[in-house]
């Protein structure tokens, strides 16, 4: 039984990280596992860099800090600050390439390590590490709206998409109508979220600036952090007047 190991990567502002962001990972993992062909070994949350221009963004280090707090209780999802530390906005495909290279590096050192060991010795736990380590696939976790983005070719060709859509919407038809997408449909996984839970981070920020409760929508640890580094009406307007960078996950569930 050799399942293909998969790493899920989600990009976005995570401003702040909500329960819904984390749900997307859980849904995607369940879906891939139930195909019988994949084993999700890791989830990576990659907050965007500060220099984004979208209204209401506070500094990236806060997003990373909040994501870390939110993911404290998760044993497989982690936050990666690489993208947030770049000087400018990084195209999604570049973020994918970076994390793919990192995974490749880790895989190569693991392979070298196991080659040196006695062939009957096996490492702990994972089903795939009993034999030679298998190179994991890296897939982008996103909302269905991401399918609309034009520069998607390399992503579906080299990596793959796990696309979460709401109950009531069905992107499969959209995929059939696109030559590019239907060509790579084997690498586009459509996951339906039947339990509606659309926690928009924009609404969260509005609620916070109005003094309304966001408990049970956002982890308590994140709420406590926000109380120290307040989202005010001021920060919502801070980026007004800046040009918006190319569309990325706009109006998708990740934002």
């Amino acid at each position, binding site marked *: 039984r050799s399942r293909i190991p998969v790493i899920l990567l989600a990009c976005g502002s995570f401003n702040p990280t909500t329960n819904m962001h984390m749900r997307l990972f*859980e849904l995607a*993992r369940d879906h891939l596992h139930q195909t019988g062909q994949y084993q999700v070994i890791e989830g990576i949350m990659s907050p965007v860099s500060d220099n984004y221009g979208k209204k209401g963004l506070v500094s990236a280090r806060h997003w990373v800090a909040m994501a870390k707090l939110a993911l404290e209780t998760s044993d497989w999802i982690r936050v990666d600050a690489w993208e947030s530390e770049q000087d400018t906005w990084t195209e999604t495909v570049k973020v994918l390439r970076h994390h793919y290279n990192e995974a490749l590096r880790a895989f190569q050192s693991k392979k070298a390590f196991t080659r040196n060991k006695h062939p009957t010795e096996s490492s702990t736990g994972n089903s795939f590490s009993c034999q030679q380590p298998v190179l994991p696939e890296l897939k982008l976790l996103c909302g269905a709206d991401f399918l609309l983005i034009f520069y998607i070719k390399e992503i579906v060709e080299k990596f793959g998409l796990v696309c979460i859509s709401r109950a009531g919407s069905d992107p499969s038809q959209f995929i059939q109508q696109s030559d590019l997408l239907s060509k790579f449909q084997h690498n586009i996984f459509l996951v339906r979220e*039947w339990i*509606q*839970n*659309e926690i*928009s981070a924009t609404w969260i920020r509005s609620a916070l600036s109005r003094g*309304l409760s966001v408990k*049970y929508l956002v982890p308590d640890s994140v709420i406590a952090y926000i109380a120290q580094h307040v989202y005010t009406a001021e920060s919502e307007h801070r980026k007004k007047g800046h040009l918006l960078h190319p569309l990325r996950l706009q109006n998708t569930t990740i934002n």
Partner: protein
Amino acid sequence: DPDRKTEVVLLACGSFNPITNMHLRLFELARDYFHETGKYKVIKGIISPVGDAYKKKGLISANHRVTMAKLATKNSDWVEVDDWESCQSEWLETLKVLRYHHQKLLSADVTNSLQDAVPITKLGRKRKQEPNRHEPIKKKNQSPVLKSVPQVKLLCGSDMLESFGIPNLWKLEDITEIVEKHGLVCISRAGNNAQKFIYESDVLWRHKNNIHLVEEWIPNDISSTRIRRALRRGQSIRYLVPDVVRVYIEQHRLYSPESEDRNAGVVLAPLQRNATDPRSSQALN
């Protein structure tokens, strides 16, 4: 004037099988709503899980449901769990639970008033003797009799409101007393049928000032039914229920195809009771 605000206690009755983040959100939404009116102050939230005698399909033992609700509210400073209803051997009408909590508040209030009433003169004397003390005089001590009693309002989603229309599920006189003497706080999605439902019922329309409709802008469909379904299918329920509840469910293996079959074929307690009561055949409209 903060002392002029009507104090409100929110009471949620239901199966809580299991409790979810959605249930907990109802309290937060309702409290924000009341506070924004400037006229109310929500002083407490009470979760009252239904007893096993309710006989709903898939209902697991009250012990577990109460425990999970308690775990879920451990870090809330205003929402608590009350197990009085769940301890009764017979199923209780929601109105009876409302009356119980209302009565409980009344007696607590009387006790508090009596306690507050005693030191008035003492306090007065102290102030004369020690003018530098900065103890504020509590206004309510001066007239305990006039202080308004906290209201207990039934907190629910639009599904419970619309269940008023299900034949034999509720007694018309119960619905009347709930909206007349206590009040309803109904959380529903923007663009729902709640207003229409109220409009189409004479009883509800008459007391519409005591029915507070709160719009929920974040669609939140995390029903217990869906949670149980996900669990049966081995799917993750993380971030839909508090983590402590998820861990508890896993440790005790609470939900399975077998647990879902409990009470299969058994008539729901209110339907059983009201079927034999001629008064229940009165329609809501």
